[in-house]
């Protein structure tokens, strides 16, 4: 890797996570390191079937700290995401990425958690108040969501 050298242990851990992720190839989630920097990955999650996010695909940016996995990676949505727990800059409010982070999590479990978060938001602590309010009304929610997705997702 030509990138600024993080410790070999971190690289090794990320390589083995990548290998595990590639080989298990779970449905609807994926991630891959940037060609020039093992610490920066691009992720992709698809909304789970039979949820309002079904059929929508979101890109994520994953930045791993030099002391990963002892510190959580920084994850943001690359594709604008209209969701109660995601703000307009793509920042995500999810406890396991913050205070509940543990070294036992890995890329795959994080992505699965995010996929779950899409369909199961925590409306009690919203970053997007409008989305949180609309959540009760799933039909209206879906209409606004699709409009938002059409407007923004194609920029990507």
């Amino acid at each position, binding site marked *: 890797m030509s990138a600024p050298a993080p410790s070999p242990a971190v690289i090794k851990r990320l390589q083995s996570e990548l290998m595990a992720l*590639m080989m298990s190839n779970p449905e609807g989630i*994926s991630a891959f390191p940037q060609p020039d920097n093992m610490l920066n990955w691009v*992720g992709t999650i698809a909304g789970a079937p039979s949820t309002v996010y079904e059929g929508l695909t979101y890109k994520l940016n994953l930045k791993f700290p030099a002391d990963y996995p002892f510190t959580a990676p920084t994850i943001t949505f690359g594709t604008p995401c209209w969701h109660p727990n995601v703000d307009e800059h793509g920042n995500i409010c999810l406890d396991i990425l913050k205070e509940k982070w543990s070294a036992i999590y890995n890329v795959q479990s994080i992505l699965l958690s995010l996929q779950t978060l899409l369909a199961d938001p925590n409306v009690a602590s919203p970053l997007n108040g409008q989305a949180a309010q609309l959540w009760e009304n799933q039909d209206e929610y879906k209409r606004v969501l699709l409009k938002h997705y059409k407007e923004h997702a194609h920029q990507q």
Partner: protein
Amino acid sequence: MSNLCEGLPDEALQAIVEQIKGRSGAPAAESSIDRVAGEYRARLRGVRCECSEVGGEREFGQFLEYLGRIGDVARGWARDAGGAQMAWGALVYESFGAAQIGLLQQWMCLGLRCVLRIVETDPALVLRADLGAIGGEGGRRLRDCCGCREGGAGRAWGDDSGGGDMCGSEAAALRFLGEFARGCRLLAELSILDYARGAVLGAVDQAVGERVEAQAGRWAEPVLQPLARGVGRAACVVDALLGGRRLAAGHAEAQVYARVSALRERELFGIIVDYPESRAAIDDLRACVGRLGNMRAVAAALRGAVRRRLLHPGATTGDILTQYISAIRCLRLLDPSSTVLEIVAQPIRAYLRSRDNTVACIVQDMVSGESELFEDAGEPGAEPGAEPGAEPAAGGGGEGVVLDEDSAQRGWAPLPAEARSVCRTAQRRDADAVSLLVSIFDSRDVFVREFEAHLAQSLLRHAGYDTARERAQVEMMKLRFGARALERSEVMLKDVADSRRIRLGGAHQPLVVSRQFWAAPEPPEPHVLLPPPLAAMRARYAAAYEALNPARRLEWRDAQALVTLRVQLADRTVEAEARPAQAAALFAFQDAPARALADVAQALGCGEDAALRCLRFWQARGVLREAGAGVFEAVEALGEEGAAVCGGDDDGHKGQQEHGASDDDDDDNDDEAAAGGAGAGAAGAARAAALRVHFNFIVGMLTNFGPLALDRIHAMLGMLLPGEAVAADELRDFLAQMVREERLDLAGGTYRLRGRAGQ
């Protein structure tokens, strides 16, 4: 003030007084003196030194001339206003400001530096120089202190340690001494010294400070005594030249002690690191502390340095222990009462207690025989006086046992030999370094347990029954902790000895150990079914053992056993040491060239994960390879395709470990392995398997980055799967096949995932 007129006979003096009085009568004389004083005040102001600071030979001479001109003025005053010496003092005082005092200090300091160099080179030279008349007490002291060459001879004049060229040779030194003497005489005559004392003492401070600082980092040789002697002589010379009063002498010596003490106190941490090479520095510091009584300040400074430099996460536990031991030895030298040691050790001990590998490090040090600790460890009960730190008492100051802080300050001194044993009883914790380390923890059991684990590991690790080294370690530990504490260790050694005796022939080299006494951790190892030949061998051994020891039952510890295998393949023989489970896994290939993972797992009677680990072991050694998903085959030939055959065989050996319900034993095994032949085309299959891995990566990158060109894909694969490089041509063929299989689309030179047109 009698100086000016000292040379004059009394009659002459009287005559001058008469002359002044007679010239103008009493009242007139008053006004006449005022007038003369005004004139001389102006003349004194007119006398200026040509230099603004004194730093070298030229300025040294200029200042001397300046003093000479003031002397001329003084002589004129004595002539014109004879007898009114007090008034002269006032005149000089008025005109001699801070600038002149500063110059005087610099001049004095320069002179002191030279004198110091001269007395360190050849003290007797001082007596040969033309110093003018020095009589009385000063002269006698001068002869006493410079009369012998002790400590001076041996240095060459060329060795420039101060003073520049002013005393670079014997002739120059003699010339300098003459000049310096003249200057000092003038100072004395001019009554300047009465209020320029501070300048002289300041010069002493400065010269001593320079010399002491030059010794920073030089810990191998004593510094204090040579410096004190040299400085003492130089001060004596200056005092004699200044007219015989004791001005510089007492001050100079105190300065040497204070400066050396401050220097070594600052450097103490480094000195301890260097110990015992720095022994001389410790001796110096001890002498200083003995004089100054600043032991507690030294202790506090060292404690601060220890916290700052040692007790942080960057220092390894081994380093901390080493430094702690050095500190114990140094501080015992420094302070037999152990006051300092207590103060400094407390944070170190608290810190060591908080590190979880401290016990292991200490035990490791104790048994490794390489550490300095070991020297002590063998002689724990050594009598008090025999400990390495005990130095010959330098001049015993007989305070007796020093236990409280006050007395440590008041009368710090090495304890006399008689007091030593008393002292030691009172501080038995200081008996030796190892005891101190052990006492960091409340319980000694932790050390014994740690040692047992270490012993068990070392007995299990190497094959064979030779325990001489371990025996020595146990004996040593017994000396320290008592035979009772080491009972379990004794049982372990005895088990090894017994195992050797009951060796029943065959390829087994079992180690039968008693489960209740062995401290070895039992790694959770899945139990595997051994192949029939091996199992039969074991059964025979067990039957024989149980026949010999009716009340005992053997339980095999496969995780500790080692099997030595020789694997014959078509074109080579591989020798390896493996765990029984790994050997058994390989044995599964005895009859079949390729086996599915599930089959192997079934044969071993364990889960697929465990079986896969065993197979990976052989894969890493080139004996097996993964032919496809979940299928392994023997690598019969290293060339392209193998055909082949193999026989397995082996022989085994050595295993070990533990247990049974109440006793036990164990053993070992052996085994064999063999492998069957593989068919042609295996290489092609393996390649296809590797490319399947690549395809997963390709899907990953296309999913996340969108469509990519062939060279990008090739570059990223090369980076992320460096062990399995694929040529660009091969990759293109493979991707073309994927396109044919409708898994990828190729459009405009870039590949994309099928059905993801939007990406």
